């Protein structure tokens, strides 16, 4: 793993400041969130706390990126 700089490390240690959902809820809502994003709608308003979770969870962030790319590829 590449060493992070100090600001990145602080961000990873403290995580997102706002309310966030957990990994299980993120998985449950991810398909709806991604389709709203792909349609240009306000996904964050529909699923509060999911974007904060993506900021704090690299694994869910990877899966979100992939689902969005796959849906856009369809």
């Amino acid at each position, binding site marked *: 793993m590449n060493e992070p700089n100090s600001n990145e*490390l602080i961000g990873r240690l403290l*995580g997102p400041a706002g*309310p*966030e959902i957990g990994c299980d809820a993120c998985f449950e809502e991810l398909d709806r969130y991604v389709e709203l994003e792909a349609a240009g709608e306000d996904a964050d308003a529909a*699923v*509060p*706390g999911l974007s904060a979770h993506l900021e704090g969870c690299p694994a869910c962030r990877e899966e979100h990126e992939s689902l969005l790319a796959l*849906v856009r590829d369809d």
Partner: protein
Amino acid sequence: MSSATATVRGAVRSAPVPAGKTVLDPESQELLQALKGSGRAYDEACARLHELLLRAARFEVSRRRRGMNGGEADVIAMEAADDALLAVLRRLDDFRGLSKFTTWAYKFALYEAAVKLRRRAWQDRELPLEPEALGFFHSASPGPDDYVEVRERLGKIAAAMDDVLTPHQRRVLVALAVNGVPIDVLAERLSTTRGALYKTLHDARAKLRAHLEETS
């Protein structure tokens, strides 16, 4: 927080879905109906679903294969599609029609493939879990806007980790946030779940933020 959300142990629940938003597209309706049926139509629907899941799994593997040879990549994609098929069939009744059925199904294949790839990348590596790994703090590379205050803040966080976190919270935070261990890999080694581990991480981060605010 608005009435549309409710605090759940420091997290939020999503807003209720407005009525009238759950009409399925014809393709989703047809596939779902066949998967809930039997006989030849069911077998054909399963084969169609497996094709979709394999496409999604291959998509994920191709994005993140990191030097893996083609044969190994295809085995992982096929295993992910097989596992995702079982998961989708087991959870059919959980599909709420809030997205296309294919999008809902894709996420299972992406998840299975991503987890397999992360576990494979760490399969022969010892996980750095111990607080001694905090030595890493002191060698964190300066960033482009790295000022003395930032380094001091990092030092305060390191001290707060010793002062306010439980040993388990500290181990999880060090592994995930400092050493970049994937959460699925850590969950497997600690015999727990990704959700439970993220809750530990979330609580540790909240404690640190609160402590820093109190002492600033």
